[in-house]
């Protein structure tokens, strides 16, 4: 790898959003970006996270205003749904752009 390429990769990595960079949160945002809203149960299944972990990561994403949480009842059963915000979508797109920059040797798609 040329020194210039390595430098570019390092800069791309250093500029990564730490909230998004955590694998569980990245997976959550990736799922939410593909739908209007997603219920907790589906996120739990496709990410393979435990309930506690998923709630904790979702709270961090909510604090960063990357997602919105909606709590409701279906009959007597509580239902939690998540929705990605415009800020969250932008952060995810930026993160994936930076990842691709490193992957394809400094060129952007």
């Amino acid at each position, binding site marked *: 790898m040329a020194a210039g390429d390595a430098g570019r990769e390092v800069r791309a990595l250093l500029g990564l959003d730490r909230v998004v960079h955590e694998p569980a949160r990245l997976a959550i945002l990736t799922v939410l970006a*593909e*739908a209007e*809203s997603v219920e907790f149960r589906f996120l739990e*299944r496709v990410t393979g996270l*435990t309930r506690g972990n*998923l709630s904790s990561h979702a709270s961090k994403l909510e604090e960063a205003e990357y997602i919105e949480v909606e709590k409701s009842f279906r009959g007597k059963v509580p239902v939690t749904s998540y929705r990605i915000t415009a800020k969250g979508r932008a952060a995810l797109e930026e993160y994936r752009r930076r990842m691709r920059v490193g992957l394809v040797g400094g060129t952007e798609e």
Partner: protein
Amino acid sequence: MTVRGAVVADLDRLSELTRHYARYSRSAAGLGSVLGGVCGLVSYFVGALVPLTLWSRLVLAALPLVWIVAKELLQRRYYQRYGRVEELEGAGERRLRVFLTGFVAVVSAVVVGFVLLRGSSAVAWWEAAGYVAFVAATPFLTWWFLRTPLEFIVGVFLLAQAAVVLGGGSYALGEQLQAPIGSAALVLVGLKEHWSYRRLERRLGEVGGGGR
């Protein structure tokens, strides 16, 4: 493949899986489409070929409602049983839905206005009321429940047939040919969607191993 390459590939798979599953909240009805196609064919051929009695008219009038309720139940209870995931609606899809609903709303308003202004002594009050009720409800049902062009073709036919049979008539064989063609196509589309869901279900089973 590098670690980052693997991560990107995993994320792409996760995106694709979510999009695929989300389709079953709106644009894919699977067995609900099959049922809609069957209802469309039954309504078309029974309406055209079978002498209408009070009971057969009530059955034909009930078909669109039975289909819509069954379709919604299947989507919510079967296809989305791993948790509700609402599909994103593209700008083009929304424009098409607005256009189709708007078109139906204009036609409905003209028909209802015409019936109310002109009145009709040829049919019983409940027949006229049933006719007007179905025509007036069609734009609302179209907006909320008929989400693809094929569902629109079949659903509007079912609702129109329901109104017409309640009003004492029915469509003759050879009229409204888009209905049997659209219904047959809806059956095929529904079967394809259902098989596609069965494959998706296996993938969801694979990723659904214990939490971490």
